[in-house]
């Protein structure tokens, strides 16, 4: 039922493109696996909403973006940040609540933002990033900057009012925004089949006369291809697109969620289609990349994480004066 984009699909990704996608996914996985360990160790407070299993979506979509494009993210946002180029050390420092963090330790996991990278913020409120994405896209449109904005959100978020208002507004104003649904089949403990009255989130695109695409979210190349189509469509001035990526999170809703709402078989089914493993297979089979090279990419990701954790640990917590700083800025009047 998904619509069609009028944008050209572009050339197939090169070996280097795919290697970059692979490296991004490896970094995201290393990051969130490390976070899991650290949360369980009690290294820092807060809920760990991890995207392990979903790496292909962040990696594939952000690879289709320019550096100066915008992204709004969710509570499950580490992958989006890393894929958009946010520094893992600063991110980790943020999770540790250090002054060296992306947000000087005042935001935490659910509020990581890096405006230098067009990362307009993770968000603790389900659906809240979508209207903000419309605004970033409005800026792009009114200033003719050619920038595209991607709004990531979950399957659960597609049932909240802000989703509806944003898609309608983006369609009415013909905004250059791509709404990317990470359908990981659950909103907390609630399965998508229960909470979503449509068959696919992408089916809802028709309500706004915008194209609706579905990508295999466990296949980074499919995500990348569809995202390129969608981004090209948006960048061309043809208006917004809804892109649904079918994916899965291996952890529960948060670190520690026993996730009794799903079966072991279901988890196995998805793990067998793991995006990183599939991408590795593709690289080996299609491009003859050696296992050793792939292992090295994984090892490099781990080294970056070691460095990130070291950076985070070496930082200091913000001083107590920071409590009252940056509530307001200086008035210019």
């Amino acid at each position: 039922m998904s619509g069609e984009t009028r944008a050209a699909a572009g050339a197939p990704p090169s070996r280097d493109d795919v290697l970059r996608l692979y490296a991004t996914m490896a970094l995201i996985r290393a990051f969130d696996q490390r976070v899991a360990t650290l949360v369980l160790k009690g290294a820092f407070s807060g809920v760990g909403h991890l995207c392990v299993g979903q790496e292909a979506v962040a990696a594939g979509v952000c690879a289709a973006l320019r550096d100066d494009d915008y992204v709004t993210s969710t509570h499950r946002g580490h992958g989006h940040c890393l894929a958009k180029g946010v520094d893992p050390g600063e991110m980790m420092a943020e999770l540790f609540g250090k002054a060296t963090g992306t947000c000087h330790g005042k935001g935490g996991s659910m509020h990581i933002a890096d405006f230098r990278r067009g990362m307009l913020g993770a968000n603790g409120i389900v659906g809240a990033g979508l209207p903000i994405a419309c605004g970033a896209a409005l800026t792009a449109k009114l200033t003719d900057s050619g920038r595209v904005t991607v709004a990531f959100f979950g399957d659960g978020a597609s049932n909240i009012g802000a989703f509806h208002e944003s898609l309608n507004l983006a369609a009415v104003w013909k905004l250059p925004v791509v709404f990317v649904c990470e359908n990981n089949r659950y909103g907390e403990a609630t399965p998508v089949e229960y909470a979503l009255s449509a068959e696919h989130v992408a089916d809802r695109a028709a309500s706004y006369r915008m194209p609706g695409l579905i990508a295999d979210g466990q296949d980074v190349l499919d995500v990348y291809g569809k995202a390129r189509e969608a981004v090209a469509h948006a960048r061309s001035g043809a208006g917004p697109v809804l892109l649904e990526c079918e994916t899965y999170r291996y952890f529960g809703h948060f670190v520690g969620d026993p996730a009794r709402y799903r079966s072991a078989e279901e988890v196995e089914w998805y793990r067998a289609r793991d995006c990183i493993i599939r991408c590795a297979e593709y690289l080996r089979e299609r491009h003859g990349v050696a296992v050793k090279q792939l292992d090295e990419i994984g090892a490099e990701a781990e080294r970056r994480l070691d460095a990130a954790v070291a950076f985070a640990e070496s930082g200091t917590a913000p001083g107590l004066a920071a409590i009252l700083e940056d509530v307001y800025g200086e008035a210019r009047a």
Partner: protein
Amino acid sequence: MTGGRVISFREAITEALRQEMRRDARVILMGEDVAGGAGRQAQGLSEAWGGAFAEYKGLFTEFGDGRVLDTPISEMGYLGAAVGAAVTGLRPVAELMFVDFIGVCLDQLMNQAAFARYMSGGRVHVPLTLITHVGAGVGMAAQHSKMLYSFFAHIPGLKVVAPSSAYHAKGLLTAAIRDDDPVVFCAHKLLLGQSEHVPEEPYAFPIGQARVAREGRDVTLIGAALTTSVCLRAAQALEEDGIDAEVVDLLSLSPLDEETVLASVRRTGRAVVVDEGFPRCGLAVDVAALIGERAFDDLDGPVRTVTAPHAPVPFSRPLETAFMPSADQVRAAVLDLTAPNTGPSGRTGA
């Protein structure tokens, strides 16, 4: 203020917007029917409404649909879009037609606009102005007549202004648009038609600065928006009682000009805070507690509050009228304050 060109509060809003939009191409305006008749330009229509309260008349005609944007009825959507536009370099002004509608879009104002600077460790700012209409007196009942500005004042990161006249409306709206933080501009519906001298040139009135609207020695009456005029009428009536009342017009509710309030009360020794909002956890108790804590030693009596009752705004006209704080109530509160033990305190010298 007398002399010079006289325009209404409504026109002062238009003028501030027009001047700031001319001055700074990043300023845009959005909301429901801020133009009106959107999409009908092809049929020769420029704008049909210029806002539900006609404050934006002419802006669409001058600035076009790239700067003045009608929105679908989706406050969460467009207020959020204003936040997104603000963090990416524009300086949006959004309209929430009635403050009562904040119930459908508070999240974008509170968790997003107000907190973005803080949550990002100061790496972003949100130069967003929200114009909204407050207050009773127009027969629109419980869902269209509230004040609710205390909600906004409660939220760290927001600034809140509630001008009492055309002059301050222009100056405060200009300041709001130039401010790098989100500002909620509360226009009382009953003030829109009121006119006075307003300078033609652009000017900003500082956010966070109250004014002494009338000087007096015996008691300080504190108002905001419409209740400033209630205080002034009460002060006038109190002359008959031999009481010389000072009136402080808050203008800004957040940040609050604590010093002007405290300085006045320290001189008069008595205070009545007059607020059309609901009494519990509202503006009146906020100011009263400030005085009670910081000017305790100078108080000759308790700080009184005159507010709307703890009840939704009723429709029936006599009820609605009685619902709103009146000069009579303020006068009675002052008389009660000055009467029981002594006459006017020593300080009055009356």
